Structure formats: C-alpha cells, structure tokens
C-alpha cells in the first residue's frame, strides 16, 4: 500500500496538517502536499476511470503530464472538473470527487466496455452504427453523445474573479529548475531585463530530488543561493506558480499565474493571465519521462520512476511497500536508491538492456538490490491495484520467467525534452536516435519580427539530460562564458536503449493490453491497426485512434505512439515526424482568458450625458453599437408597444424629446474640405451655403450605401457632418483613410466631435414654443427656416440649433456641450411640462421616420443596396465627375432595371406585415427555390394612421404602384398594395410651419 513515511519530505510542513475529502471520505495531508501526494499518502491508489473502457486509473506522474489522476475539485460556484491532482496544491477543506465512474468509483457500470474491449478497437465507430439509418438517428447517436467526457459539468456561475496584465522583458526564462536559474543568472549579469517563470510553487525542479550537487553544494543549497542572488538584482523578476502556456509570434508569450488557487475564498483574482512581450525566450522546461509499453502498464500502482522518486523525496510518500523498477536507462536506478534509502523494498530492477554496468546500477547492486538484465515485464497482474509482475526476456515473446509480488511498478522508458514552447511558434525538431528523443534543431528555430531565432531551449529541454551538460548548456544559453558555468557532480549514466514495446516480440494478446494513451485508452494494437488501415500520417493515426488527444495532449503518449507507428510502417521515426505542438502547454482557465470582461464591463458601455436620467425614468434599453439607447419609456403598466404608440402620438400632437447625442458629429475643415466632401457624398456639399443644412449619402467605393446624415456648412472652410449613431467612428476612420492614403495632398483636417456635444431633438407642434420659453435664440420661421441652423445661448447654455426633421414634425435639434447635456434636458422637461412634453425612444423615432418614408441605414440598407435602389436619385449628383462609389454603380448589375427598388407597402386589411417577409414571384429558380420579387425592409404599426405601414424593396417597384403583392409568412399569404412610401404629410407642410 502507499503511505506517508515517518520522516523526510522536502516540500511538506508536518507542523501544518490539512484535512480534505475524496468522494466524501475525509483524509489528511500536510501543507506543501499536492493533492496527488496527499491521496497517495492515504493509500488512495484508485483515483478515476479512463474515457473509453472505464479502466481503473491511478496516479502515473507527479507533474503537469499526468493523464489519469484528474478529479472534480470544489463545490457549487467553485466546482472545477478535470483538476490535475499532481499540480494542485493541497489546501484545507479541499473537496474532491472522482470522475467518469457511475454509480461509484469501485463498481462502475461503464466498465462493461472493458469486457468488450476487443470489439471496440480504434475507430470502431466509423465502421458501425450506420444501419439501419433510423437507429443511428434515434439510438446510436444519442448514446454516443451521452458517453462523452470525463469531468462533471459545473452548475453555477463562477464565484471567482480573474485579471490580466502585460509585461515586457529582454529575456524570458521559462522554468525555475537549475537550468532555468543558471540561464537567468547568466543573462542577468549581462544587464538585460530578465523575467523568470516557474510553474510550481518551488524553485529547483528535479535536481534536488535527483541528489545532484552543484558547485560542491547540495542542489537545494545552490538553488536557494541562486534564487537569492537573482532576487537581489534590480533587473530580474521571479514569478512562481506561473506557467508559460503559449508562445506566439514576435515574442509574445501567454502565461497563467495561479494567484489564489491555493487560497480559495481569499479576496484575490484567482488567476492572472500574463501577456508578455519578450525579446528572447529561454525555454528551460526540462524533460518528461516516458512510460514503457507492457501489458497492464495502466493498472493503478504502475507509475513513472521519476514520479515515484518525487513522492518519496518531496512529500515523504511511499508509492508502495514493494516496488519493482522496470527501465531502459540508468536514471530509474535513482528511484531504486531513493526507495531503498527510504526503507522501502525494491524486489528487483528489470533492465531491458543486455548489460547494466554503469555507476548507478553498481550503487544499486551495492545496496543488495537485484538487477535483472535483458529483462522486462510480460504482464502486470492486478485489477484496481498492482499485485505482481510477470518477468520475461525483453528479447522474447513474453514467456514468463518468474513472477514477482509487488504493489508498485516504477517504469522508465527514457526522457522526452519539453520542446512545446519552441515548437509552438514554428521551431523544428531533430531525432536523437541514441536517446530516443526529439530535440530542437538549432538550424530551424522559430524566428521573430527581425527574422532571427527568438526561442532557445536550455538544459534538459535542449536534450542535455545529464545535470552537468544541462547546466553548461543553460549557462551558455543565458550568454555566460563557459568558464563561469556552474558545475554539477552527478553519477555518470550509461546510454539508454530505446524500448518501444515490452517484450519486443509481444503477441497480439499482450499488445491489446499495452497502453499508450492512458486517458483515451489507446493501445499499441490500436496504433498498429491504424497503420494497417492506411492512416499512415502521424496526424491520421492521432485522429483515428485519438492518441495524444486527451487532456495531457500526448505528453505521455506521443513518442511511444510515434515509435510504434514507425515500426508498423517499417520506417525510421524521423520519416514519420511529429504532430504539431499547439498552445496551451497545459490547460488554462477560460476565466483567466476572459478576465475582467464580464457583466457590465464585458464590453465598453457608451453612455450619453443623459444616460442615468433615462435609467431613472425606467427606459427600456436597446443596444446600438456600444451605446445603450432608450427604446421607449414605459409608464405604469404599459407594454412596450403601448409606450411606443403613446410616444409617437404625443410627439405628433404635442411635444417630444429625444436624446440624439449618439449621432456622429465630425468637423471637416480646410481649403479642400468642400472638394473632399463632394468625393465623400453622392451629392454636392461644396455648394451648400454657410448656415444651411443638407441631407447627404455616403457610399463605399464598392457602390453600396454605408451611411447618411445631415451636413452643415459652418463656415467658408468648415463643414459639420452628422453620421448615424453606430457610424461615427467608422465614418471618421473612412474619411481619414481617404485623406491620408489617397488625397494626402489635399488640405483637409477632420475632428470627431461626437462626444463634445449632447444633442437633443425637440419635436412636435409645440417645439418652437418650448425653445422660445427657454429663451435666448430667435427660432421663428423667418429667423430659422427649415434646413438652416443658428448659434447662440439657449436657456443660458451655449447652443447650436439645427432646424431639421426626421419625423416630419416641426423639429429642432439642439447641440449643447456634453457637460451641460443633462441640465439642458432637465430644463426642457421643466419648461415643457404644460406643453405635453414627453421623452421618446428609438422605436418611436423609427415609427415616425417610417410614416414619413425616410430610410434607415441598416433597415432599408443591408450592404447590398445602392442609393439608386431607394429613390434617392435626388441626392445623387449627375454633374459630379466622381464620388466614392460612382464607378461601382455603373457596373452592369447595378444599372440593371430589374433591381429591387424602394416602395411603400400597405396591407389590404390594415394589419402589420411581419418583419422581413418576402413576396414570391411565379415559378421557381433553377435550384427549385421559390422565385421572389420583393421583401419588406421596415414594418410598423402606425398609431398616427391606425394601421400597419411598411417599406420594401420590390422588383421595378416604383413602376408598379397600386399593384397588390402576396407576401408569405409561415406559409400564410398576406396581400399588400404597393404605394408611395410617404404615408404621412406628403406635402411636408408640418415640418415647415
């Protein structure tokens, strides 16, 4: 059984016991434990179930590469599935639950799949479930989907908060092991800004566990000393619990800092996502041990040799009383020594190599540990935990030579450098046949903005697996001189011997029990099947078998799988190649990626100066771009439509007030401003007299209508262009684009003054009365005629009044400084109380403009409509030789007389046409779709006329006034007559009074 040792444990604090639960059982651990260590200390060998066969799963590793030991952590709004126990720091009260098992971990119904394993090989679902078709539809498909996933689904909104931060550095060192520290120290001495990231809470990495000595002192001491000297340097920043997840182009690095995972409930951001711009990146990310592929290598109790060592040395946890070591290299002997020195039994070391004659094997033998050469494991016996191993000759086919009872197997198939951060931005790898690993190809490193390499692997990550080499390599990577490199003393290691399958001649029966991907249940036999069926590309094999697609993303399985595939294809491993490394290195939380952007600050909310007044008045909001505008102001128990009707009627009969502050207001000034506006608008603006207003249309160079608004001539050389609410920034950018990139020699300046002014539309028969009461400016018909403007002081506030109308009523738009917007709004309300003044919202605005037949950008236009379609020919200059969009509008399809054109539409029964309905035409098109001849663009109930009104685009519409079209909604036909689009006050006298 696994248990806590009486002494030792370099990372735990025995004076700080912590209690936690697993599947409801209360367990104990110490501060400094990982969840995995604490679970093992309580003999919790079985942690979860695998995805496909629901096989029992235990703890395989001690770090981020763990594929098995994932749990659900926390409760309610802090529940998190798939939490990796090997990287989660234990905290008091941690509530953990096992995954993918029902009804419970010990007897799991899903495990039936395990009995049928032979019938469920890789890709079996591609070959089955097809017939009969209804069965796929109603039976198989739903079942396949129900069996999805491992972790439980969170039920509640996350209770924690997250944040992000930017950082900049000359040198980013990823990894706080001895290599990373050595590289950082070397780089820092050069005076550059150095940032060091360590994903765990501890500096030093593996070296202290491996019993390395550096510069004559124990690794721990050297690490402490080096960290201290780094911390003392002003140009160095050290960050723990921060994992570099992704390296992007031009030296951009995304890293996640676990600020408060170990302090749940603290009023802190749980995670902080760093966005770091680094001049150079040194990836001192170490190496990850590989499992060996032998039958039963997935049974709980089988773990990586390095992990077994970690548990003993770091957390004083014995993975088992009797641990058999199986290896193809010398490093695993360190595990044997560590276990033995901790007083645990190592019945045997099975070394696949013909000879084990190195220094480490000698040390093992010296301790009386049996070393069996040329031996491997034929089969591990046991179900939910290891009971024994059957020993065989590695060279043979699995004939059992002896059976050794044990409760733990520590395996080592060699090490794979962690090259993820080097590969993500495009770095290429080379195969090191001697050590059976891919290492960075210095000739094909990822390149940055300057075309030069910007990521260097250092230490074990670059393939320097021996401590001494690793330190020298890292020191050099940091720019240090060889002479100053820290020197490591460690037992020399004899060469490893790649072993991809154990035994090498294993028959199918055994190969069906050799796991490669432990979470997804991909076995040697599956990869061989993929090869047999022609899924020869490594990407095909991965996708066909799901090898390496589990949440460890192949850290455990890729190289072994690759080797098996290459062997099956009879080609060398480099010829097969690797799959692409993609961010993140290990999973990072969506919360951290979204960070503070949620709720009210999910996106910027643009507010007008009167925003809070609208809110207080109970406005029903409508998002318009990033603005939020009042749709209507319901009163009492009014429905929205009742409110809209009231607002329309009141405005037409008395007086309405609209917050029009969101309208774009762009100042265009300069000797060439008129000429510029003539290019920008379809109509002539240069001829507009000072003091006057003119309606204008803007098209894209592709001919389509993109915006409209009233243009005002402020002075000889200055115009004010109003744009739609959503359009101000877009149109301003559009202007600057043409001014800077095409007509850059024209003398024109623009300024976006949209937010400098609040704008209030005073609309209705009583509009003039109200402004006269506010006093200060003569707004008489004579002094301020329709489509003119004036300036002065209104109600004591500097104001500019435009006599324009989007409603057909007597109407003034008053622009005042934003800082006075609210005051002016309130002044109007106070002065207009007895004039029947009521504020109205965007919907009433829409209804009134529709009653007048005015178009609305976004309703009548949709990016496919040109002004000529909308009967706006009067706003298009025939004389002007050129304007943006003019040439485009000359193209054959744009001049086609068959184009749909704008008309009014009135139902025969006065009902309201549904939004966006179409009118079919006789027959069908060549694709068998009903032919159409028109569609509704705007449709409303007109409280003024007491019936539905609409506008629409109809083929040759204006030529067909009086004709009745059948519109179709949900199969129902609605007859509507084509009519003039102006439904109200056709003569326009009301706005001219």
């Amino acid at each position, binding site marked *: 059984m696994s248990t806590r040792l009486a002494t030792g444990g370099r990372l735990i604090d025995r004076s700080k016991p912590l209690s936690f639960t697993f599947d409801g059982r209360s367990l104990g651990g110490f501060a400094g434990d990982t969840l995995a260590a604490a679970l093992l200390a309580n003999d919790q060998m079985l942690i979860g179930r695998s995805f496909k066969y629901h096989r029992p799963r235990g703890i395989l590793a001690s770090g981020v590469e763990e594929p098995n030991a994932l749990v659900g952590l926390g409760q309610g709004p802090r529940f998190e599935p798939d939490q990796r126990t090997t990287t989660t720091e234990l905290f008091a009260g941690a509530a953990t639950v096992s995954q993918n098992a029902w009804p419970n971990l010990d007897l799991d119904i899903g495990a039936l799949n395990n009995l049928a394993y032979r019938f469920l090989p890789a890709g079996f679902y591609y070959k089955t479930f097809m017939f009969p078709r209804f069965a796929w539809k109603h039976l198989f498909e739903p079942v396949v989907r129900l069996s999805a996933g491992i972790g439980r689904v969170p039920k509640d909104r996350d209770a924690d908060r997250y944040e992000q931060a930017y950082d900049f550095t000359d040198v980013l060192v990823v990894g706080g092991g001895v290599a990373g520290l050595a590289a950082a120290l070397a780089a820092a001495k050069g005076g550059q800004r150095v940032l060091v990231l360590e994903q765990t809470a501890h500096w030093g990495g593996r070296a202290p566990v491996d019993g390395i000595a550096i510069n004559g002192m124990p690794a721990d001491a050297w690490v402490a000393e080096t960290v201290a000297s780094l911390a003392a340097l002003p140009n160095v920043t050290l960050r723990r619990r921060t994992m570099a997840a992704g390296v992007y182009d031009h030296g951009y690095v995304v890293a996640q800092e676990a600020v408060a995972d170990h302090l749940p409930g603290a009023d802190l951001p749980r995670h902080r996502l760093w966005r770091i711009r680094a001049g150079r990146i040194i990836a001192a990310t170490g190496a990850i041990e590989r499992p060996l592929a032998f039958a039963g290598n997935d049974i709980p109790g089988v773990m990586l040799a390095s992990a077994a060592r970690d548990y003993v040395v770091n957390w004083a946890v014995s993975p088992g009383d009797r641990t058999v070591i199986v290896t193809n290299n010398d490093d695993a002997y360190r595990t044997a020594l560590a276990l033995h020195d901790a007083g645990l039994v190592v019945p045997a070391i099975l070394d696949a190599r013909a000879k084990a004659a190195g220094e480490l094997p000698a040390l093992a033998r010296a301790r009386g540990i049996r070393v069996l050469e040329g031996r491997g494991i034929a089969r591990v016996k046991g179900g939910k935990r290891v009971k024994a191993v059957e020993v065989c000759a590695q060279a043979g086919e699995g004939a059992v030579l002896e059976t050794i009872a044990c409760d733990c197997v520590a395996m080592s198939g060699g090490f794979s450098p962690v090259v993820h951060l080097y590969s993500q931005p495009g770095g290429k790898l080379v195969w090191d046949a001697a050590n059976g690993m891919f290492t960075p190809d210095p000739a094909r490193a990822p390149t940055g903005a300057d075309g030069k390499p910007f990521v260097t692997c250092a230490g074990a990550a670059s393939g320097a697996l021996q401590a001494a080499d690793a330190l020298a390599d890292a020191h050099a990577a940091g720019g240090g001189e060889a002479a100053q490199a820290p020197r490591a003393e460690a037992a020399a290691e004899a060469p490893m011997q790649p072993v991809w399958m154990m035994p090498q001649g294993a028959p199918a029966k055994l190969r069906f029990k050799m796991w490669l991907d432990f979470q997804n249940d991909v076995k040697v036999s599956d990869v061989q099947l993929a090869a047999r069926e022609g899924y020869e590309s490594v990407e095909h094999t991965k996708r066909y078998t799901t090898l390496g697609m589990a949440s460890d993303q192949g850290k455990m399985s890729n190289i072994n799988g690759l080797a098996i595939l290459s062997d099956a294809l009879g080609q060398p491993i480099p010829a097969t190649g690797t799959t692409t490394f993609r961010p993140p290195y290990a999973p990072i939380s969506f919360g951290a990626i979204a960070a503070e952007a949620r709720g009210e600050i999910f996106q910027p909310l643009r507010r007008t100066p009167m925003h809070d007044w609208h809110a207080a008045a109970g406005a029903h909001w409508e998002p318009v771009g990033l603005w939020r505008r009042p749709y209507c102001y319901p009163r009492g128990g009014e429905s929205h439509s009742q409110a809209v009707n009231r607002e329309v009627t009141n405005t037409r009969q008395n007086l309405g007030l609209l917050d029009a502050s969101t309208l774009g207001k762009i100042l265009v000034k300069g000797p060439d401003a008129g000429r510029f506006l003539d290019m920008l608008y379809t109509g002539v603006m240069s001829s507009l007299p000072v003091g006057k207003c003119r309606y204008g249309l803007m098209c894209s160079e592709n001919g389509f209508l993109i915006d409209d608004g009233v243009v005002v001539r402020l002075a000889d050389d200055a115009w004010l262009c109003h744009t739609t609410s959503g359009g101000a920034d877009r149109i301003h950018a559009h202007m600057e684009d043409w001014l800077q990139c095409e007509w850059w020699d024209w003398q024109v300046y623009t300024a976006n003054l949209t937010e400098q002014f609040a704008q209030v539309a005073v609309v209705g028969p009583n509009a003039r009365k109200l402004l006269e009461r506010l006093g200060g400016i003569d707004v008489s018909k004579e002094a301020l005629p329709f489509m003119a403007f004036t300036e002065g002081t209104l109600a004591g506030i500097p104001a500019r009044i435009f006599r324009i109308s989007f409603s057909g009523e007597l109407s003034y738009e008053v622009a005042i400084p934003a800082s006075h917007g609210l005051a002016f709004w309130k002044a109007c309300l106070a002065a207009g109380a007895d004039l029947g003044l009521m504020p109205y919202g965007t919907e009433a605005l829409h209804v009134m403009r529709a009653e007048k037949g005015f178009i609305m950008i976004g309703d009548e236009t949709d990016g496919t409509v040109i002004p000529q379609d909308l009967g706006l020919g009067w706003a298009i200059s025939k004389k002007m030789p050129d304007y943006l969009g003019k040439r485009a509008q000359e*193209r054959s399809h744009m001049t086609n007389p068959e184009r749909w054109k704008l008309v009014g539409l009135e139902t025969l029964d006065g009902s309201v046409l549904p939004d966006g309905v179409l009118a079919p035409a006789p027959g069908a098109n060549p694709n068998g779709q009903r032919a159409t001849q028109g569609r509704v663009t705007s449709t409303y109930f007109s409280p003024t006329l007491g019936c539905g009104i609409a506008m629409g685009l109809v083929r040759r519409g204006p030529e067909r006034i009086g004709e009745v079209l059948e519109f179709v909604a949900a199969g129902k036909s609605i007859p509507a007559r084509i009519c003039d689009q102006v439904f109200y006050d056709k003569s326009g006298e009301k706005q001219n009074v």
Partner: protein
Amino acid sequence: MLTLTCPCCGVAAEETELAPGGEAHLKRFGPGASDEDFEGYLFARKNPKGVHFERWRHAMGCGKWFLAARCTATLEVFGTYKAQSPEPPPEIIAAIKARRPDWKGYS
C-alpha cells in the same frame, strides 16, 4: 501577435493597437475606368505567400495609416514606411533583398 513600428509616431505598437487595411499600393480607378481595371483595383489581390506590402492604421495610437513590408510565410517584418509612398521605397526594397535574395522584386 505582430509588433509593428509606426513610422509616424515611432511607437512599436502591438497588433491590438493596430487595424489592418489590406494590400498596399493599389491604384484607384474611378469613373471612366474599364470594368477590368475597376475589378482589379477593388478585388484582385496578390495575396502572396512571402513578401507582402500592406496597409495598417495605428488606430489605438496616433491614428495614422502606414505601410509595412512583411513576409506572410514567416511574419518577418522588413520595414514600415509612410502611407503616402506610391511604391515601396528603396531602403525597404534593399532590406527585403538582404533577407530574401531570391525575391522577384516589387511589381
């Protein structure tokens, strides 16, 4: 995540401060131009896998448009220059030739 140095204000701006504007050095064709020329101006794009000349606006910055010479296959940046350049200036061409000897040149 590109970083481009704005030639107008000198800031080494990151991608999120910039707005891309497509292929550079397009010649505008207006009324009177042939259908072919107009289509070419508005739609036909080189879209090369390699050296590319493109428009950028320092939108979250000085607001100016500028041009960049960039490799679309490696994202290497050869240089940035004024938007008012009718064609890539000699120093940019030289910078590209230095890095891409087999480059066919601007056309």
